[in-house]
């Protein structure tokens, strides 16, 4: 069955080559029956060999989800989603225990090679000296297929595992933090995710440890009609530091696919977590057909004093993006940052932004958002800055800029500011502009073609954010911005 699907996808690929990551791999898949009910939840839990408490947790989440309604406040034209018409579990069939990348199904391996991202790390495996070390957890459809560098990380006490392994190996640790930052009933999609998540990543950085390498998860939806619901839990203990990268791609398919992930970050005293995302799920074709529905809940709790979280995201993919990586700044002098580039083209819709909830004294936050709209797309920044009554001397600075390319698209800015403490200083600035003809001509006179000129100017527009990304990601992000806009002018 998956094979015919794959053939169809390959045909689609032959028709359209614009989405560079739109290949699908001929991997033998194992599916749970289509649809969603209590039995499916039990099936997933059983497949993963989970302990009883985890199953209970899932069932409770499923019950909550049934009582909830899909939110409609975002500026998105949401289609009816038939939750019974999707597979909630798909795993590559040939899945023994994998210790290194070499042991992975060669088809999956090929997929990752095509994705390009883990190249650095393959170099390390191949013994290329001087290559930078990045530990990778690769999630293929619903299942984590490879976590690399585990031993090296274990030497310093860093736990970097797929979450299903973590539930079995470190149940107490997972139990202590799972759902602490994003409660099951937080929202419709977090409840759904809590019920059916099939894998994801768990990271624990012990007290005082600076993670010796960047950690990375690569998400890939391969099987057709499959929802992907991964769960990421990161805990940085006192004084710890980690930089975490997340990349996403999906094959090109005519039907829509659902992605509803939850990322929770718990940050203790004086710890710091940097979380970078380059989201390049398949955005649909130029007529708005197909593409991923991306409903993601990401939240960090800066629990301890002087803790810090920095979200950086480059969002170029997905047909629909609904995503607000947020910071609860509970610790005194805690710091939250949000840097975002969201680009929409053709019929894409993005409603994204952040929430900075200031509870702790002297907490600070910075929000820089760059929205780029082209084609017939709609791009919305939605953000909340909230200062509680007890939060003395809070500082927030927000800057949101929108760039419009063409006159069929929309750019929207919806900032919410709620301040209950007089010592707070909250500033918000925003501008909307278009690429000026003079800028375009100037760049073209110097020899750049129209697409190159647009890419150059857009990268300039997004620079403040791009430079917050780790090097490899920044380069990929720059390329992505250019590719996503090809043909947008003219």
């Amino acid at each position, binding site marked *: 069955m998956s094979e015919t699907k794959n053939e169809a996808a390959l045909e689609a690929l032959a028709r359209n080559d614009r989405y560079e990551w739109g290949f699908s791999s001929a991997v033998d898949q194992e599916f749970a029956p289509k649809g969603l009910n209590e039995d499916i939840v039990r099936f997933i839990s059983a497949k993963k060999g989970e302990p009883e408490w985890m199953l209970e947790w899932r069932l409770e989440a499923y019950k909550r989800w049934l009582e909830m309604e899909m939110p409609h406040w975002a500026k998105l034209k949401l289609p009816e989603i038939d939750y019974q018409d999707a597979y909630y579990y798909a795993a590559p069939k040939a899945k023994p225990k994998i210790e290194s990348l070499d042991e992975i199904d060669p088809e999956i391996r090929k997929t990752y090679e095509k994705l390009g991202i883990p190249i650095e790390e393959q170099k390390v495996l191949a013994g290329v000296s001087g290559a930078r070390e990045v530990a990778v957890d690769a999630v293929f459809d619903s299942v984590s297929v490879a976590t690399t560098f585990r031993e090296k990380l274990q030497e310093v006490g860093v736990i970097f595992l797929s979450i299903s392994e973590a539930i079995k190996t470190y149940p107490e640790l997972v139990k202590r933090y799972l759902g602490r930052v994003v409660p099951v009933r937080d929202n419709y999609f977090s409840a759904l995710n809590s019920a059916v998540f099939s894998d994801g990543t768990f990271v624990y950085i012990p007290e005082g440890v600076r993670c010796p390498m960047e950690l990375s998860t690569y998400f890939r939806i391969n099987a057709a009609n499959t929802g992907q619901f991964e769960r990421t839990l990161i805990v940085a203990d006192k004084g710890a530091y980690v930089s975490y990268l997340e990349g996403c791609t999906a094959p090109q398919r005519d039907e829509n696919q659902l992605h509803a992930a939850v990322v929770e970050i718990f940050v203790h005293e004086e710890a710091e977590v940097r979380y970078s995302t380059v989201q390049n799920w398949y955005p649909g074709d130029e007529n708005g057909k197909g593409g991923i529905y991306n409903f993601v809940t990401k939240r960090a709790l800066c629990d301890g004093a002087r803790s810090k979280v920095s979200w950086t995201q480059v969002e170029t993919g997905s047909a629909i993006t609904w995503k607000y990586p947020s910071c609860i700044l509970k610790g005194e002098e805690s710091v939250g940052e949000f840097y975002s580039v969201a680009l929409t083209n053709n019929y894409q819709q993005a409603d994204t932004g952040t929430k900075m909830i200031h509870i702790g004294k002297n907490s600070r936050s910075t929000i820089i958002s760059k929205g780029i709209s082209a084609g017939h797309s709609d791009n919305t920044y939605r953000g909340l800055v909230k200062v509680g009554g007890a939060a003395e001397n809070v500082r927030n600075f927000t800057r949101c800029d929108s760039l419009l390319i063409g006159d069929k698209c929309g750019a929207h800015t919806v900032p919410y500011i709620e301040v209950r403490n007089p010592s707070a200083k909250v500033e918000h600035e925003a501008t909307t502009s278009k690429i*000026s*003809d*003079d*800028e375009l*001509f*100037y*760049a*073209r*006179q*110097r*020899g*750049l*073609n*129209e697409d*190159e*000129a647009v890419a*150059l*100017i857009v*990268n*300039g*527009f*997004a*620079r*403040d954010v791009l430079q917050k990304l780790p090097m490899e990601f920044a380069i990929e992000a720059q390329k992505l911005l250019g590719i996503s806009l090809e043909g947008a002018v003219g």
Partner: protein
Amino acid sequence: MSKMLEIRNLRAEVDNKQILKGLNLEIGAGEIHAIMGPNGAGKSTLSYVLSGKPGYTVTDGSARFMGKDLLAMEPHERAAAGLFLGFQYPVEIAGVSNLHFLRAAANAQRKTRGEEELSAGEFIKIASKEAKALGINPEMLKRPVNVGFSGGEKKRNEMMQMAVLQPKLAILDETDSGLDIDALRIVSESINRVMRRPDRSVLLITHYQRLLDHVKPDFVHVLVKGQIVRSGGAELALELEREGYGELVA
């Protein structure tokens, strides 16, 4: 061998207004030409039409650049073919560093011409050398293109781009305006050094003789109401400086 630039009976309009009204001009390889003329004569329009700025419509005539139909080419193709426009008002591009912009331009042109792209290292070497020659602080290479530059800095920056891109034909639109005497000397030296060669040509658009003291033109043309009304040698510029455009405009 064909001429560097051959313009025949060129007519062009902007916003439905006829600006160039049958302009003829030939520039040979190795020649430096100056175009002078009162405000509104069509000098900048000529530079924009030749470089292909959108909004400038050619209604009649032809322009050939090294034998090729210039008017049929896209702006970036003209640049790759070797046409450089020194802008009267260089454009500011926020967030894009000078160095990055210039390297992107140089490599795009090399790619179009089927040449090997320059590595970042090679490129920085070239750009730094040219910056130094123009008295540009290397720090300026890292700043966004023209953002926050003074008028003089912008013009020097244009000259640095020219030096790096090594064009065949440079059209310099009032490159001398906004320059003090020292800067004028530096800019002039750079024009002479980069462009005064048997296989390169320059078209200077200027109001003043003072640039022509430093960059000696082989030919001077007077543009009035969209046509060249008089041509001569370097002495013509001196005459105009003395006597003004009076009779020519009438």
